[in-house]
């Protein structure tokens, strides 16, 4: 009898680009597991369905997985906006909810059971690593003094911005304060915000004008919190067109191959992006009980799909690894037991994935992890931070020499 795992993903609609990549991550991992003999001796059957980027459909489909397909476990979906409602329903059914993407702090403050986030930390805390790069890698006094923050009006981007700017995170339903992030990472690092702008989630076209405003603000650092690689491309291309000359550019998206393809090598040079994963980082993990390094993953992925993987495929791959280890560890597909097992992970006995080691706190956020900061250099995405932790760190390039 096969072991069924369901995943509802945005294969069509606004989030389709990432959705498709997530599907690959899940599929590859399932295939490798099956080749190695499955989980608990059972072959794994992956049921993926398309929620068209629509939350109601996503909920509907998880209900279908649980009630009709009678799946043994589920994988999470892509994006905060879909994860939030799905979290509620999975919690109700007591399913282990391994989240590949859904970084807003509020999700983890709802009291949902068995939530496990397979990324570094809640999005609100991303700024910490960005500022760390500036403080650690740029000689004192030469760092940017002013910043322009432009962001998509998106759950995830808003959350990063809240951390950088030191806003309060509130639950609008009850007006309860969830976290006070004051004074914010930028203020901490002595960087003054000279411009701040948000663009709507859908239907925004006026990139040149936005880029022009950024240029006019004269900010030395440009922080672009885009919701997708597409927006990152648009923003970068526009900055090039208007001839902006910042010292440092940090984007929240843009580690994907589409980015370099869309903007070209020279404009991308020096653009810094935070990621959870990078192909050169020597993470060691296990798959089907055997060691499986990050390099193995990259090789397997290229063999399967003919292209290099990026973060959007690596994270779901890690989610799949986590569920596999949880079932094996608990020895059953009883989701309550799996949840207990996952919660019981410690620093020395973590879940091992191609994203590195994972242990979680009560809320479901990973403990003791930090982002990998990457930078585009001559058409290659190199990782520049944290230094000293792994091999292969490339020197940080600063300041950026125009677009």
């Amino acid at each position, binding site marked *: 009898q096969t072991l069924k795992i369901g995943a509802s*993903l945005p*294969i*069509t609609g606004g989030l389709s680009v990432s959705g498709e990549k997530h*599907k690959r991550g899940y599929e590859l991992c399932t295939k490798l597991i099956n080749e190695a003999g499955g989980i608990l001796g059972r072959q794994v059957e992956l*049921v*993926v*369905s*398309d929620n*068209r980027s*629509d*939350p*109601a459909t996503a*909920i*509907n*489909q998880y*209900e*279908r997985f*649980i*009630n*009709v397909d009678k799946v043994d476990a589920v994988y999470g979906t892509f994006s905060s*906006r879909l994860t*939030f*409602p799905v979290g*509620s*329903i999975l919690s*109700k*059914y007591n399913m282990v909810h391994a989240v590949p993407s859904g970084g*807003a702090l*509020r999700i983890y403050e*709802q009291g949902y059971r068995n939530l496990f986030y397979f990324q570094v930390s809640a999005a609100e805390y991303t700024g910490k690593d960005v500022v760390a790069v500036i403080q650690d890698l740029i000689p004192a006094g030469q760092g940017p003094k002013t910043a322009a923050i432009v962001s998509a*009006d*998106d*759950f995830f981007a*808003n959350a990063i911005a809240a951390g950088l700017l030191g806003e309060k995170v509130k*639950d*609008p*339903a*009850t007006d309860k304060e969830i976290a006070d992030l004051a004074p914010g990472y930028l203020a901490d690092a002595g960087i003054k915000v000279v411009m701040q702008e948000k663009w*709507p*989630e*859908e*239907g925004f076209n006026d990139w040149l004008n936005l880029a022009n405003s950024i240029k006019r603000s004269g900010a030395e650092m440009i922080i672009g919190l885009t919701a997708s690689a597409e927006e990152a491309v648009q923003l970068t291309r526009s900055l090039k067109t208007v001839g902006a000359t910042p010292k440092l550019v940090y984007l929240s998206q843009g580690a994907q191959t589409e980015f370099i393809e869309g903007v070209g090598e020279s404009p991308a040079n020096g653009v810094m992006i935070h990621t959870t994963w990078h192909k050169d980082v020597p993470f060691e993990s296990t798959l089907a009980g055997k060691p499986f390094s990050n390099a193995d993953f990259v090789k397997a992925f290229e063999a399967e799909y003919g292209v290099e993987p990026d973060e959007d495929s690596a994270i779901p791959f890690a989610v799949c690894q986590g569920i596999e280890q949880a079932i094996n560890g608990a020895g059953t597909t009883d989701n309550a037991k799996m949840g207990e097992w996952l919660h019981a992970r410690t620093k020395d006995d973590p879940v091992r994935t191609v994203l590195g080691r994972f242990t979680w706190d009560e809320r479901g956020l990973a403990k003791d992890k930090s982002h990998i900061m990457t930078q585009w250099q001559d058409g290659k995405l190199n990782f520049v931070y944290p230094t000293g932790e792994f091999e292969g760190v490339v020197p940080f390039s600063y300041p950026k020499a125009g677009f």
Partner: protein
Amino acid sequence: MNVTLQQSSANSVLEARRAHNEKLARRADQTRATWFPLALLVVLLALPLLQFVGNYNYVLHLVLFTASYVAMASGWNILGGFAGYVSLGHSVFFGVGGYFAGMLLARYGISTIITAPLAGLVAAVLGYMVGLITLKVRGPSFIISSIALLMIARILFDNWEFIGGANGLTLPTNDLPVQWAKLPYYYAMIVIAAFTVWATYRIKHSKFGLGLRAISKDEIKAESAGIDTRFYKVMAFALSAFFVGMTGAVWGEYLTYLRPNIFLLILVSANLVLMSILGGKGTIAGPVVGAILIVALNELFVATMGASEVNILGTGLVMAVGLIFFPLGLVGTLAKKGKLPRVLNWD
């Protein structure tokens, strides 16, 4: 010259025309099958009994989901089907209803099932005011103005911090065990759907409904026939917003999550339009049949083809084929051809 006029009484043309007219007359007062929707309602009300013998949550979910679309498509039908104003922006009222009742629930703990009529009223007032502006134009311009309304609402909701902006708002879940958790919403939605269908029936067979139909054909003629076209149209808009708003209220609590891009989606509106048109715009059974059909088809696509572009291609294809072969919708076209099964003749 000799003029011969043969006024033969057995003129075949006369016969044919008389027969034709009699056929039309018969169709006009064909007895409708009121028992069928009533029986359907009884079955649906008893359906949750299944929970005693197993877990049929998904079945309940599907029925509830379908019922919500039945209510909304039927509501849409008042404006789009009777009055002939196709709106692609009705998800605005879905959102307004959802948020209004949702905020009451979040702040004061009053269940949306109680506040749904109030939410409907709020949606209706908004519909009335919007109608005053947009119902000045018909046809394509109106359709586009409805899309614009949706866009405006979307931007406003996305930026309104009080209701959580683009990030949305979570609502408390009820404390019932998983098996029974859906029931309150299930019954609420069935009742709303049944009420809406009944209301559209009453409207269609009233002077108001006749006036709306006249408006949909020729507004100038209607006006000169003594129909206050502006009032009729705006009322139709408000009424149709009312039912959609009520549905939104209950749907919000059922989802436990309110977010502009759950409610204020063009695809939600498009679904209403698709359902009404595929089933038969302007008929009573049409939106119901359409809703069931589309939900079923969606399920089929998900079950058989899973995740793929085939899904959206399929939806488009069904819509196109339906339009080409059933230009008046299933119910409408069959009725015109005199082939409508009795059980589907609700009007």
